[in-house]
Each structure stands twice: as structure tokens, then as C-alpha cells.
């Protein structure tokens, strides 16, 4: 466990306020990855044989796969044997049965991060003075919290159960709803999909599971909060959301990690399934530790996210605000299989200092009259590299498909890079595909014009950047939109002289 005190760390880099370490005893697997590691994780979670086999199959395949190199990112080779694949706070060994059993040290961690884990207080309408509801999130949000490799608390479980909504750690769902897991796990992102998805399939530790029954509008926002605490651990969470016919759910994901000099790997998989007339709105505010201004440390965020619009008139909407991580490699995608289904991708990706991001989406049109919208806003500052990579594929079966793509880049300073790689594969003549792109710069004249009216340069950049991102922020749930705006300003600290 790290001996570095929270205060030292916070002082060392005050911009990243989530960068503290929680001093807690952990049960951490030594670094290394082989079949035993995979079996150990599966056994630790008491998984049924089919799932152990499923993991082993993924692992066997992963060993044959080369690491992808096509992304516009650069980093020294990752030694997968140097990573620990499992870490759990010791006090959680038997799993918390209720919030009362959650280690108070953990609760304090989340309080500090602004994540409300105190549902009793909120439910009873009595707010304890020592634990006011976090201002950053509304009180009507159910939260699942994943700390390193395990889920430590899921709030509002009962209220959700009344509506028939299942919201629990995926490790729990394996036992409580095996039929759903067996049917849908890997149904959108197969084990062999790509290098990091295969790795995740082999060693995934925990994550959230959501099932919304037919015709149900989920009564509250669902949210998962991910936190990496332990040193040298990877986080391989796996999220699965199923919206049954005619249902509706809005899901929020947030993440932070302590500041460490070493790079840490985060290779998550998120699968969404929307059946007929169902709608899933998935929002992410990603604020993993980005490394220091010289590019030392930070999270490698190599994530596979894909949704399947399986039924007619279904809709999946991804909204992401990516400000953290040393490297982001992520393409939340939608497979539009149902006729008249709709896929959306709204993204703000901000890179500062030495951060690198290669992010975008894939919209795979298969059904008739399918529609997709892509709005990507890339902001590069410092010496960072920011890249949009997107694919719009219209299959021969996708009569009357439509896509609209808008890709805007904003540069701050002269040492950063912005790139766009929009790919279009059109196999159906009835498709209408529109693409707009722009690149602009925050100019010295603009900054001076603001300063001359009394607005300091950091506030000015914040205002300009927020204006640039407006179309995406509009898509975020209210509490997150405010948070996201502030996060951008914090992430840009030091971007202007």
C-alpha cells in the first residue's frame, strides 16, 4: 500500500482533485497472467463452469492476437505480465450486504469524489449534516460503485426492484440471473472481437448489470462509478445493459484514479442491447488520471463499447466527455439491425499536456430506414494529440439509411495536433450520408478581447471551449452537464499562459 499522504499528492497536482490514494488493506493478486490467473478470478467469484470455460476460451484466443497498432497513439510496449489482474479491498472479502457494512474509509473516498452512497439518508428525506448529498449529482441517481476489481455498493436496489429493474454487480448477476448473462454476455462484443476485448473477456473482474423489463421506464438515472486505487493493477470491468421491448433507461458512468507515476491499464467492455422500441442513453464522464504535464503516469484507457439496436425502432445514444487518461482508445459504436432504429454518438474529447486520444464511433447500418448522428468535438491543448476516427457502414440491406456526421476540432496553442479519419463504406445507393468538418483555433485576439472586458484568460478559454461543446453537453443529463463544463475548465488549467 502506498505510504504517500493524500495531502502531498493533492498539493503536487492540485488540478486533478481525484488524485488521492485510499489507505485501505487490499487483497491483490501478484502481477502475472496465465491460465491460473483466469481460473483464480473465476474461482474467487464462484462462477459456474460455463463462464470459466468462456473466459479460458477468450484467454486462449487472446494469446494468439497481436496488439493493435493502427491507432494514432504512441506508447512503450505494455508488459502484460507486470500487471496485477485482481485487487479487492480486504474488508470486502465477504461482500457488503448493505451500506452499513461498507468500509467507512471507502465511503469517505466516494464522499470526497462527490458520489452519494448514502441512500438511507436520501430515501428518508433526512439529510445527515455530516453527509450532505453531493452537489455534483442529483439525489435521484442509483449508483453502483466499482473499486479496483470489485463492486462495493449498489444503492437504491429495492426501489428499482419495485419497478422490476435489475441493477447489480455483474458478478452477482451471474448467480442471480444466469439465464440473462448466458444469453447476452458477449452477444454484442464477441470474445474475439479485438485484442483488448479478448483480454477483458478472460480477466474481467466486475462491473454493472442492468436489465429493464418490457415496457418499463426506469424510474431513475442509473450510474456506475469506477475507481482504480491499487498500484499496478489493471481494471477490466464489464458492463451489460439490456433494455427489453419498449423500455427506457438512462445510464451514467464516471471514473477517476489516483495519480501515480506508472501507467495503469483500463480495458473495459460495455455491451448494450436494445430490443424493439427500447431506448438506451449511455453517458460517460471519463476523468481517469491523465499523467503529469510531461506525460509521466496516467491511465491507458483501451475500451470497447458497442450497442446493438436489435429490435425495430430501438435507439441507442452514446454521449461521452473524455478529459482524462494518458491515452484513450475507444469507439462506442452502434449496430443498427432493427428497421427504423437510431444510433447517436455525441462526443467531447479534450487532451492537454501530453495526452493522446484516438476516439470516435462506428455506425453499422443493417436495417431499413436506420438513422445515425455523429457529433464529435475534439479539443487539443498543450502538446497533446487528438484524433477522431469514425466508420459509417451502410450494408446492402439498409434501404434508406441516413447518416449525419459533424466533426469539429478546436486547437489551443501551436504545439498540439488534431486529426480526423472519417471512413465511409456505402453498399446501398439509397443512403444519404452527410459529413461536415471544421478546425478552429482559440486565437490570441479572442483571448485578449475577453481580457479587455475583465475576463481572465483561463475563464475565457473555458467559456470558448464550453461554447464549442454546447451541442454535446445538451445531450448530457443536467447534473452531468454542469459537472462536465467545470471538468473541462479544470482539465485546461495551464493550457494558456
Amino acid at each position, binding site marked *: 500500500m502506498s505510504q504517500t499522504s493524500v495531502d502531498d499528492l493533492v498539493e503536487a497536482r492540485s488540478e486533478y482533485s481525484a488524485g488521492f490514494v485510499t489507505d485501505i488493506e487490499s487483497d491483490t493478486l501478484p502481477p502475472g497472467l496465465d491460465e491460473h490467473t483466469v481460473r483464480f478470478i473465476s474461482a474467487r467469484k464462484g462462477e459456474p463452469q460455463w463462464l470459466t470455460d468462456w473466459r479460458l476460451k477468450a484467454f486462449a484466443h487472446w494469446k494468439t492476437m497481436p496488439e493493435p497498432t493502427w491507432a494514432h497513439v504512441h506508447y512503450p510496449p505494455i508488459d502484460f505480465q507486470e500487471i496485477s489482474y485482481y485487487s479487492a479491498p480486504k474488508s470486502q472479502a465477504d461482500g457488503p450486504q448493505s451500506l452499513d457494512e461498507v468500509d467507512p474509509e471507502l465511503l469517505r473516498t466516494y464522499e470526497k469524489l462527490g458520489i452519494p452512497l448514502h441512500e438511507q439518508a436520501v430515501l428518508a428525506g433526512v439529510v445527515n449534516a455530516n453527509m450532505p448529498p453531493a452537489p455534483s449529482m442529483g439525489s435521484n441517481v442509483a449508483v453502483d460503485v466499482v473499486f479496483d476489481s470489485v463492486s462495493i455498493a449498489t444503492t437504491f436496489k429495492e426501489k428499482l426492484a419495485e419497478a422490476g429493474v435489475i441493477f447489480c454487480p455483474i458478478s452477482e448477476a451471474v448467480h442471480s440471473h444466469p439465464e440473462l448473462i448466458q444469453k447476452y454476455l458477449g452477444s454484442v462484443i464477441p470474445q474475439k472481437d479485438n485484442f483488448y476485448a479478448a483480454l477483458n473477456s478472460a480477466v474481467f473482474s466486475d462491473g454493472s448489470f442492468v436489465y429493464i423489463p418490457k415496457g418499463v421506464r426506469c424510474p431513475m438515472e442509473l450510474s456506475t462509478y469506477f475507481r482504480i486505487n491499487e498500484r499496478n493493477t489493471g481494471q477490466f470491468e464489464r458492463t451489460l445493459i439490456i433494455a427489453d421491448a419498449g423500455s427506457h433507461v438512462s445510464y451514467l458512468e464516471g471514473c477517476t484514479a489516483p495519480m501515480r507515476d506508472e501507467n495503469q491499464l483500463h480495458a473495459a467492455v460495455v455491451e448494450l442491447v436494445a430490443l424493439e422500441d427500447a431506448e438506451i442513453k449511455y453517458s460517460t464522464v471519463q476523468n481517469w488520471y491523465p499523467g503529469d504535464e510531461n506525460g509521466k503516469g496516467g491511465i491507458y484507457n483501451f475500451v470497447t463499447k458497442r450497442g446493438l439496436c436489435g429490435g425495430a425502432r430501438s435507439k441507442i445514444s452514446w454521449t461521452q466527455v473524455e478529459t482524462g487518461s494518458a491515452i484513450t482508445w475507444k469507439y462506442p459504436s452502434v449496430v443498427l439491425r432493427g428497421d427504423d432504429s437510431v444510433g447517436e454518438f455525441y462526443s467531447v474529447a479534450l487532451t492537454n499536456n501530453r495526452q493522446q486520444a484516438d476516439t470516435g464511433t462506428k455506425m453499422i447500418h443493417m436495417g431499413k430506414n436506420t438513422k445515425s448522428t455523429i457529433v464529435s468535438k475534439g479539443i487539443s491543448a498543450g502538446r497533446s494529440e487528438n484524433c477522431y476516427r469514425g466508420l459509417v457502414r451502410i450494408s446492402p440491406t439498409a434501404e434508406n439509411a441516413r447518416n449525419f456526421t459533424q466533426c469539429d476540432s478546436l486547437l489551443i496553442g501551436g504545439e498540439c495536433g488534431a486529426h480526423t479519419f472519417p471512413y465511409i463504406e456505402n453498399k446501398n445507393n439509397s443512403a444519404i450520408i452527410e459529413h461536415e468538418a471544421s478546425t478552429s483555433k482559440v486565437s490570441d485576439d479572442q483571448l*485578449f478581447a475577453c481580457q479587455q*472586458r475583465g*475576463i481572465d484568460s483561463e475563464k475565457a478559454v473555458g467559456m*470558448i471551449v464550453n*461554447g464549442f461543446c454546447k451541442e454535446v453537453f445538451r445531450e448530457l443529463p443536467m447534473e452531468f452537464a454542469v459537472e462536465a463544463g467545470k471538468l473541462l475548465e479544470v482539465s485546461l488549467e495551464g493550457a494558456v499562459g
Partner: protein
Amino acid sequence: MSLLQVTNLHATVGAQDEQKAILKGLNLTVNPGEVHAIMGPNGSGKSTLANVLSGRPGYTVTEGSMHLADADLAELEPHERAQIGLFLAFQYPVEIPGVSNMEFLKASVDSLARARGEDQTNTATFIKHIRQLATSVDLDPQFLKRGVNEGFSGGEKKRNEIMQLLLLEPKLAILDETDSGLDIDALQVVAEGVNRYKSENNGVVLITHYQRLLDYIVPDFVHVLADGKIIQSGDKSLALELEDKGYAWLT
């Protein structure tokens, strides 16, 4: 005490290795309640003076001093100069797409209030006030919703600057060719705005090429700036004389 006191001001422009001297010993005193017009040939340093006073990056003061009331401007950041009441209406107002005029102006008003230790104006009051001001300079309040100067015509940009002047009520207003590119009606609107702003507590520095503006805003002093110095000062009749004879007889 004078409002603006510029003494023997020397300033250069450009990067460190290729600095070019523009202001070469400029003196100017503006007392509260006074209007000073500054005229002079193209490239003589008029905008440079405005930029140096307001702290635009890229300029270096190499000698002399500049004070606004008792504050040494050289010691203040550009936004701090604005916060103590220095206002520059730009010769070429810049566009800031994505940031609405309304949002920009609220941020500006709030920053100034904060610097003075005052409370922020409540948003509803602010909106009402700014709408009235827009109308008073002949701008449709719809302009407030658009990006700052985004797609505004030349004349609309200039009227927007005057609206900001009326909103912020600075101690000293420097207007850099606010009359250029205006049609006759707009010129009157702008002049009327400046006259409305003027009081015995504040001062105006009008940079202009045209005597016409001075028919509407009557200056107490007219200065000729040439080659980085004020080479002639007089009352409003000097402007008429310049209109007649040009600058050649002075230099």
C-alpha cells in the same frame, strides 16, 4: 488627480530579436470629464497606443510610464486593467463563435463586479438592462443570442462595442476608429451613445481619421500623433485645419 497620465512612453512591438520601436516618447494627460481626439497618419502608432495601454500581448514598454488614476498600468494584467475601468473599443472587433453575446457580457459584468467586491447582478435584471441598451444603439436584442460578433456586419460590430461601453461604464474609454465604416445614421447612433456615457467623472480618448465624428462628439483637445509622438495639440479647430491641410505641414 488626472484620470490618465502617460509620460514619455516608449514601446516596441514584435518578438525579442526583432523589436520595432513604435511609440517614441509620448505624453498625454486626460482629466476627468475631458474628451481627447487623437488623429494622425496611418501607421503612426494610434492603435499601438491603445494596445499598450490596455496590455495587449506582443508589445513591450521600454521607457516611460502610464497611470490610470493612481494605478500603474504596467503592473497590471490586461483583465485587471479592464477591472479598474480601462475600456478599449476595438478597431477590428473579433468574433468568438459559440459564446453568445449575452453569456460573454454577463461574464464580463460579473468579473468587474467581483473585482470591485460587489454582488453579481441578478440574471433577470441583467437581461432586461442589456436588452434596453441594445435597442438604444439600434441593435435588435436578438443579436444578444448570437455568438460574439459572429457574422455581424462591420457597423453592427461597432455598435456592439458602444453597447458594451454603456454596459460597463468604465472610467476611461479609448475608442479606436469606432467611426470607420459606419453609415451616417450609425455614426449618429454611436456618437449619441458616447455622449450618453460621458460624464464629469470619466474620460474619452477618440482615435479617428475624420473631423465628421467630432461634429457629434465635441473634443476638448485634439492631438496629432506622428511617428510615435504627439507633435501638435490644440482645440477642436485643429481638426478642421487638418481636414483642410492634411498632416504634411506638421511633419
